Each structure stands twice: as C-alpha cells, then as structure tokens.
C-alpha cells in the first residue's frame, strides 16, 4: 500500500468500569483495500468500531482520515467524514419502509420537501445491486421482512451513502450461503471502486475469500498484523492464543448422563413449530442457528416467559404446563438471559442482593427449605465464595463487576434454588476471554452434579467446544442433531438449510 491510508487509528485505548476494552490498538486501511479485523467475541472489535463511528470517545489515541486527526463527538461527524458502519445489532426502524430506512436522517429534498420518488428510485437502484433473487420492494415495512432481508437493507443503507470507508461488523451472521455470495461479490465491487472496507469476522472462510490484509485483536490488543492473508491456522492461533484443549472442559462420559429431565413433544407457538426434544441430567446441549431461527423463543417457551401454545411438556417425569416463569422456576428451571444488563441483573443492588433475588421471591414462612437456606446472608455469601465471584465485597453494587463475575453471580442466584434444568443464553457474550473458560468449567461442574444444561449460543466454537450434543434450529424448528465431533461447516449448512443434518 502506498500513500496515506484513508483511515488510520493510532494507539487507541478505551476502558469501561470493570473492563479495559482496548489497549493501544493501531490499525489502518487504504483505498480499495479490504482489511479483515479478526478476534473472538469480546476481544474488543466492536468497541474499536464504535470509536471509529463516533459513538464512544477513546481515552487515548487518535483517529485520522486522509492523514487528518478527527474528533468525533456525534455519529453524524463520522458519517460526514465518510465513514459508514453496518452494525451487528440492527439499527433499522421496523415501522418505517425500506426506502425511509435507507435514507434515515438524510432524506433527499426537492423544494424543501422530501422527494419520495427519488428516495424510492435510489433504493431500487441500490437493492438492484443484490440481484433479482433478493427482491425487496422499497415501500415494504421493514417489520414485514425476514431477518436476512433486513440485513440486506442494512448493507444497502451503508452502500447508498457512497462512503469512503465502510465498516461491516459480522455482516453474514444472519445470511445463508447464497446470500453470503451476494454480499461477497458486493464487497468485491466496492473494493474495485476504491472504497476502504473494514471487515469484522471470526470466520476464516470469509477472511480467505475477501481480505487483502488481516489484523487480529485479542483481549483488547492488536496481537498480530499480516500484509497478506496467512493460512487460517496462523490467524486462529493468534486469535485464540492458547491450547483449545484446556480452554474447554472435558465432555461428559456416557455414565454421567442420566434420566430425562425435560421432554417436549410437538411444542409450538407463534415462533416455534413441531419442537421435539429431550434434555437429560448431566449433559450440556448446545443450540445453534442463525439469528431469528427460534432458539431464544424456545428457551423462553420452556421457561414459561412466552409459553408454548401447542404440544406437551414432561418435566422431571410429570406432565406440566408452564404459563409463566414462576411456574417454571418452582418446578426447577432456571434461565440466564442473553442480555444481562437488560433482563438479568439489578445493577444498582449489591452482588449479594442480586444473588438472593429469586430465592427471596420464593421464600416464605412455609417456603421450601432450599429457598429459605439462601435468604440469609451467610448462606449466599458461602455460595458466592463457592462460585469464586471476584468482588471487593459482596455489598458492592453489581454494575461495578466485570461481565464474567456478573454472570457467576446470576448462576449463584439459580443454584440457590437447586435447579434441575439451567438454560444459558449467550453465556459468554461480553465477557473477557479469560473469564470465558471459567464459565465453561462452571457449566460442566453443574452438569456433573446432575443438572441438565441447555446452552443457546451464536458462537460456533463455543457450541462445539462446550456441548455434549448439538441441536441446530432453523425457521422455528429443530433441523439437525450433531455430536461434538461435527465441524462449524456442518452446523452452518444445517442452520442455513442447504443440507440437513442427521435426523434427530
């Protein structure tokens, strides 16, 4: 690469309470270049992008565009400077049309009024780049599109900005094979037209297919940088930086797996159909699938939060219906939600109070001994010690703890009730890499003690490393069953529907 890079980040450092997200990361991308940014979940890639797009301000370091130092304080500044970001979480408005979303905040105007015709025409042109097989009408409401089409709209939005720099944050998370191909050829087109592309992924296939250069982020540091694409093994080693074998605990032995704890037959509701599954004591079952495939809906249905409307549940040998979480909890089911801050924790309360949250709500003068045991402070303190929750004091407010320790405290909350089935949704999302291993070991210890563990995760290495058995979901039903010797490719193919796995 010659000349000044279009975009450069120098010595970026960013900390949040409890986590040092980035440490002195430097990074550059030139015209017509695809620079892959690789790293495991939680390595700090998304934080880096949010600094680039003006959402966060770095504690140290600077962002340069065409060699000029920038000071973004509002995402608008980054947009005006020519940076466009396709975020991992959708930033679309479901109640507005595709065209309105594409031109959000920058609607074309004629005589001071919004020029609807121009908006629709430009939308049609940009969507045309995807080819006719993905026909999306500009006046459709985004809420009426499926997840893959929504992702396409998100991508079209970034392209229509004619940005100098386009950042794609795991853009294929919700796409199937043929949609991925469409995206890849678009990336090629953009590169040919001179756009600088920062492509974030942890899938080696995409790096090999697309990237000109590669930078690996691990634990908030840029640990390796390659001016050409090396062999996948080299990148993976730089990403993981440790032996896989000791990262994930030993799987269950056949004799560890016991009786059936949960059996669902023909379970269905608005998002699910024909769900047949069995979860057994002592085993960890991983649930893989694309976004919107129904994995979270299934967890919610089992937990009674959004109940099944059809089918039968047998739990612990008895036929049951769980019409709300309280029913499910009373029967012995616990759930750790994917979004800890939104629906898992009371951030302003102490660690100990968070641990006692559920047992308190079930304890009373004639309550079960199990619940009452942990309503007293000493009992919970002992349990938190056992979990090895690291906090200056258990009276500390929850929000000051790191993600890993918050997760352990929630596990303690459920352990207080001695659950027979524990559901983890995205158990290590937003957790430091070092703390991930301890969460996996914790899950395995629970299974060894006879708990059935259901793990919903979008992180395929995690699914393969931590599960004993893997179920793949697509379009609201279970489409394949695999053991842990399966490959990421097997799971992806089943999840996208190109090839079905061995029937369950």
């Amino acid at each position, binding site marked *: 690469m010659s000349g000044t890079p279009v975009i450069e980040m120098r010595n970026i450092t960013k900390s949040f309470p409890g986590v040092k997200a980035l440490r002195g990361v430097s990074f550059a991308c030139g015209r017509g270049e695809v620079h892959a940014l690789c790293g495991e979940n939680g390595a700090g890639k998304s934080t880096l992008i949010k600094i680039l797009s003006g959402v966060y301000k770095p504690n140290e370091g600077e962002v340069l565009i065409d060699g000029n130092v920038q000071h973004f304080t509002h995402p608008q500044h980054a947009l005006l400077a020519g940076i466009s970001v396709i975020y991992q979480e959708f930033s679309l408005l479901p109640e507005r049309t595709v065209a309105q979303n594409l031109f959000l905040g920058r609607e074309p105007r004629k005589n001071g009024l*919004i020029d609807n015709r121009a908006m629709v025409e430009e939308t049609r042109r940009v969507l045309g780049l995807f080819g006719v097989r993905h026909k999306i009408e500009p006046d459709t409401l985004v809420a009426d599109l499926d997840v893959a089409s929504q992702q396409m709209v998100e991508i079209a939005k970034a392209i229509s900005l004619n940005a100098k720099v386009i950042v794609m944050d795991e853009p294929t998370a919700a796409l199937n094979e043929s949609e991925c191909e469409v995206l890849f050829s678009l990336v090629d087109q953009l590169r040919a037209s001179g756009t600088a592309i920062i492509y974030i992924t942890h899938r080696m296939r995409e790096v090999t297919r697309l990237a000109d250069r590669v930078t690996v982020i691990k634990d908030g540091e840029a640990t390796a940088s390659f001016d050409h694409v090396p062999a996948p093994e080299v990148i993976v080693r730089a990403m993981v930086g440790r032996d896989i074998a000791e990262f994930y605990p030993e799987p269950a032995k056949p004799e560890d797996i016991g009786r059936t704890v949960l059996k669902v037959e023909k379970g269905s509701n608005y998002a699910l159909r024909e769900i047949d599954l069995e979860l057994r004591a002592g085993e960890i079952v991983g649930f893989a699938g694309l976004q919107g495939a129904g994995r979270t809906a299934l967890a919610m249905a089992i937990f009674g939060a959004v109940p099944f409307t059809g089918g039968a549940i047998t739990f612990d040998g008895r036929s049951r219906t769980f019409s709300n979480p309280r029913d499910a909890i009373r029967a012995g089911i616990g759930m750790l939600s994917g979004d800890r801050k939104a629906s898992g924790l009371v951030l302003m309360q102490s660690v100990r109070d968070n641990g006692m949250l559920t047992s308190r709500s079930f304890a009373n003068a004639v309550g079960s001994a199990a619940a009452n045991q942990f309503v007293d402070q000493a009992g919970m303190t002992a349990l938190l010690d056992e979990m090895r929750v690291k906090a200056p004091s258990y009276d500390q407010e929850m929000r000051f703890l790191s993600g890993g320790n918050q997760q352990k405290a929630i596990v303690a909350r459920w352990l207080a009730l001695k659950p027979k089935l524990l559901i983890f949704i995205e158990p290590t999302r937003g957790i430091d890499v070092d703390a991930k291993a301890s969460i996996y070991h914790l899950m395995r210890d629970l299974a060894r003690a006879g708990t059935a563990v259901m793990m919903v995760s979008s992180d395929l290495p995690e699914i393969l490393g931590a599960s004993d058995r893997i179920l793949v979901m697509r379009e609201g039903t279970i489409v394949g069953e695999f053991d842990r010797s399966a490959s990421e490719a097997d799971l992806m193919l089943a999840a996208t529907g190109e090839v079905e796995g061995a029937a369950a």
Partner: protein
Amino acid sequence: MTDTSLATPRRRFRFDRNASAILLIAAVLIYLGLVLALGQTRFLTLENVIAILTRSITLGITAIGQTFAILVASIDLSVASVISAAAVVTSVVMNGNPAMMLPAIAAVLVMGAVIGLINGLVIARLEVNPLIATLGMSLIIQGILSYFYNNFAGNVPAEFQVFAYGTIGVVPYSLIFMFALAGLAWFVLRFTRFGSDIYSVGGNQDAARLAGIKTVRVVVGAHILCSLCAAIAGIYLASRLRSGAPWIGAEGVYDLESIAVVVIGGTVLAGGRGGVWGTMAGVIIFSLIDSIFNVAGVDAFVKQVLRGIIIVAAVAFYAARSQRPVA
C-alpha cells in the same frame, strides 16, 4: 435453481393499524342505532353532526400537538395548564380592545413556544423523564396563574368571538381551522425531513442518532409544536367563553383526554408509529361517545365514570393487540 421464496414480503392485515377506523365506524353505528331505536331522528340533521364535531375543537387542536409529542416517544402533561394560561393571557391582553387582538395572539404563541422549548430541553438535554418534566411544568404554570387570578379575568372583544362563533353556511370557522391544522400537521409529518425525523427518533432513538440525526433538536421541535397547539386551543377557548379563567384547562381534563384520543387514534405510546388522522378519528370517537350518552340520557357523574372506563379499556385493548413478543 428455483426461486427460494426469500424476500417475498408478507403483507397481512394488521388489526392494530386499522383499529381507529374500526372503532370510528363502531361508534357511528352505535350512535345511529341508538338514535333510530329511540326514534329521535332530529339528532341526525347536518346541524347536529356539526354540533357534535364542534364540541371537541379544543380537544382536537390540543391532541394534534400531543400527537407530535407522543410520536417522538415523549408525552406532554402540561397542555391543560398551557390552555388555561393562553386563555387568560388572551382575554387579559385584549381586555375588550379589538386593536389588541394581534398583539395578544402573538404574545400567547411566543409563550407557548417558550414553554415547549423548555419542556423539550429539560427532557432531551437534561434527560428528565417526560412525565415528570411536563407535570412539573404544569404545576409551575398553574401556580403562577393562580397567584394572579382566581376567576375569569379580562374579556375578548366581539370581533374576536368570530373565531369561535363565525360560520360559513352552517360550518363554523373553528371547525375548518381544526381540520386545516390537522392537514398541516399531516403534511409536516409526511413530507418534511423534520416529520421523518420525528418517526425515526420515536421509533429508535439510538438508531436515529447512529444515522446522524440530531435527536435533541427533534424532541425539542416536537414539544414546541405540542405547546403551540395547546396555546392555540387556549386562544380558541377564550374566544368561545368570551374570557379566560385559570381553571378552564384543568376542568376540561385536556391533558389526559388529549393523550387518550391520540392513543385511541392508533399512535403508539412508545413512539414512532401513528399519525394525525388517527388522532382526528379519536377525537370524533370521543365526541360521539359523549353524544351517545346525551341521547341515552346518562347522568353526568356516571358519564365521567364511563369515560374513564372507556379510556383505560381502549388503551389496554391496544396494548394487548399490538403486542409482538421478541423472537
């Protein structure tokens, strides 16, 4: 390879998008049924229809403004106090002098805009919950007003009463004015970037910010329009009552009723979806309910109880119908 039905949009009938029209038709049918059953066909004349509509002009004008506040995912509980203040200022400044008509109107509009500006800044800049911010504003306005006046003060000149009582044929100016204002609001929401920004910020403030929209300005703008509409409603009320008093806004329960008609009109309390014609439908539904009670001869206090039940039931009904659990 055959077409994989990937992106065929699923266009299904959504009850919650058409509910205000359905409720409007239901209310009209109940009214017609009742009138016919009682044999009171004198209630079916054009004059009576206009009378029904004219009864709700203060509420209608206020609700147009409230639509903006709710669309942007905020709310305004200070409208009733603004109405009182606007009515009092109108009648005190005019004090029977036709020459003071324009200065009075200008003063009231400036007052409305300033109140909206403060509401908007407190909500968007200081991030105070809109319920608390506007309730506080309401107390402040009501306190100042009550300090100076305790009953009808000043009076408006006969020339100004034309606003409330003048007609073209049988149609009052004020009714035309309300629908013209609704048309203008619709135009702003539908065809201007500000209108589009209101839906975006109301729909998802973070997404709007990431798209480069200055969200604070949009929220402030919506609140200025909301307070301006309330001020206009106050001017109208002064014209109709021939004077203003510090309690007329609160007595009309315009704060709660304006929110109720906006919601019954299909605008979602969480923001980002709805529109001003739905609000107009909501206003008409409310007038019809009133008329139905009148025709049926319901006692005034019973009527109040029934109105309360209808408001809560309607909002609960919407909440249940438009629920879409996360996948």
